[in-house]
């Protein structure tokens, strides 16, 4: 049962109007939920995590552990002057940050977060996620090209090359999951993983796809890091090479949007991994939504950990890894999974 249906049933009246109100309310709840996470991650968690890796104290003045920094930081970012570069391609330049944020946010619509927090559960859930998430590439190109800045242009080009190279392996690995579950529907994927794989005395190991096929899990992790553009694959931004890549010319609210978009993307990557590899909201004792949150934050932590210790690869090496290694391995994984699933079915 999805969230809009729950709300609709709780409403005193029925009909199309109630359906619309319920959908809107549910979308607001989930959007706010995701945004809250990113707001916490961007100005606060990222600082604290980086500080932990580098033996620093970092923000500690407002609220417990300095978490109150979120508010002044938001005020600071939003109140800055919006500088529009000369010769910017206006509609595209303005739209790019929105495309970036909403492409990631929309994809959350089909992610089951546990405890009924699930906006929609279409039969093509997984395809929807990948399709919507890859719209972000469009936003990157728009931002890079419309900024009328050579660094932004280079960054935009890099972003496209990278997303092309890593989206295909990503989807191929996703297909291997579909072979296993036999369904594209997200709720179905989660349900399949709930089945017990083996029982070790009192402990029962669930059939999470990460446990069933760790090879695919590792491949997906790598491809996902590239997809969200974090070390070692952060070449589209690469501040020490091309200043800030496609986001060089963005300031104020637009910058906030792009920044948010990046974090929503990291969380989306975490959500996809949690859903198709780590059993979604499944977990003992705690409610599902908490487990789901823990899983996506763990993925966020992982990207930050990579940032602290892993060098950025060069653009040609990045493309090479994508096309020559990851794609091949993704196909190997696909065929292997298909064979195993076929044999088991027969």
């Amino acid at each position, binding site marked *: 049962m999805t969230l809009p249906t729950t709300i609709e049933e709780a409403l005193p009246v029925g009909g199309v109007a109630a359906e619309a109100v319920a959908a809107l309310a549910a979308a607001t709840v989930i959007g706010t939920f995701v945004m809250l996470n990113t707001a916490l991650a961007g100005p606060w968690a990222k600082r604290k*995590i980086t*500080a*932990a*890796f*580098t*033996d*620093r*104290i970092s923000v*500690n003045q407002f609220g417990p552990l300095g978490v109150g920094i979120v508010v002044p930081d938001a005020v600071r970012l939003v109140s800055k002057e919006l500088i529009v570069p000369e010769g910017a391609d206006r509609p595209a330049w303005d739209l790019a940050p929105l495309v970036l944020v909403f492409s990631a946010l929309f994809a959350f619509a089909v992610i089951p977060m546990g405890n009924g927090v699930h906006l929609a559960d279409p039969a093509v859930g997984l395809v929807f996620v990948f399709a919507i998430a890859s719209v972000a590439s469009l936003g990157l190109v728009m931002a890079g090209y419309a900024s009328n800045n050579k660094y932004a242009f280079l960054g935009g080009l890099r972003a496209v090359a990278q997303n092309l190279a890593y989206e295909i392996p990503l989807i191929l690995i996703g297909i291997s999951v579909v072979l296993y579950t036999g369904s594209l529907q997200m709720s179905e994927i989660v349900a399949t993983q709930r089945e017990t794989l083996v029982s070790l005395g009192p402990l029962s190991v669930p059939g999470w796809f990460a446990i069933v096929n760790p090879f695919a899990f590792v491949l997906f992790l790598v491809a996902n890091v590239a997809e969200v553009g974090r070390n070692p694959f952060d070449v589209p931004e690469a501040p020490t090479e091309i200043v800030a890549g496609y986001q060089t010319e963005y300031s104020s609210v637009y910058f906030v949007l792009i920044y948010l978009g990046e974090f929503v993307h990291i969380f989306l990557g975490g959500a996809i991994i949690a859903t198709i590899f780590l059993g979604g909201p499944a977990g003992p004792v705690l409610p599902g939504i908490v487990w789901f949150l823990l899983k996506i934050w763990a993925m966020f932590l992982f990207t930050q*950990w*990579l940032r*602290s*210790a*892993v060098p950025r690869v060069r653009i040609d090496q990045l493309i090479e890894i994508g096309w020559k290694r990851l794609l091949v391995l993704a196909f190997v994984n696909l065929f292997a999974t298909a064979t195993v699933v076929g044999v088991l079915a027969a």
Partner: protein
Amino acid sequence: MIGLLKGMATTLKHAVDGETFTVSYPEEPPEVSPRFRGVHKFSQERCIWCRQCENICPNDTIQIVMDDSHNGEQYNLHIGQCIYCRLCEEVCPVDAILLTQNFEFVAETKDEFAYNMEELRNVPWYNSIDPLEAREPDREAWVGEGEGEVDYQ
């Protein structure tokens, strides 16, 4: 792959040991060496107006104004352009000028950094050490006496 993991393990070790190297600055000011060279403090009682500090200053930070009969003495020091080389302190024969441990000073304009005699006298000590005592053992080595005349004017 091993090397990559070794690197990640190293940073993880730093993350989980919980040690921090930075300090909460305004609450816990860092320790400053007794030899530290901060803002100047000037003692009119000690000064014999020999003008050696003015002569030795590499970039004209110190300006002394007086007439031939030592009337209307003024001692101005533009702390904003000082390079804290401490040559003035070294050259002073009577310890009338000392560089304190004070490194916290702000002003809204550069002009406010032109300290006159009164402001220089009011520069605070805020640590409980006697700088002269702390520096005494090496005092004679600061500016070697050497041969040659001493030009007090």
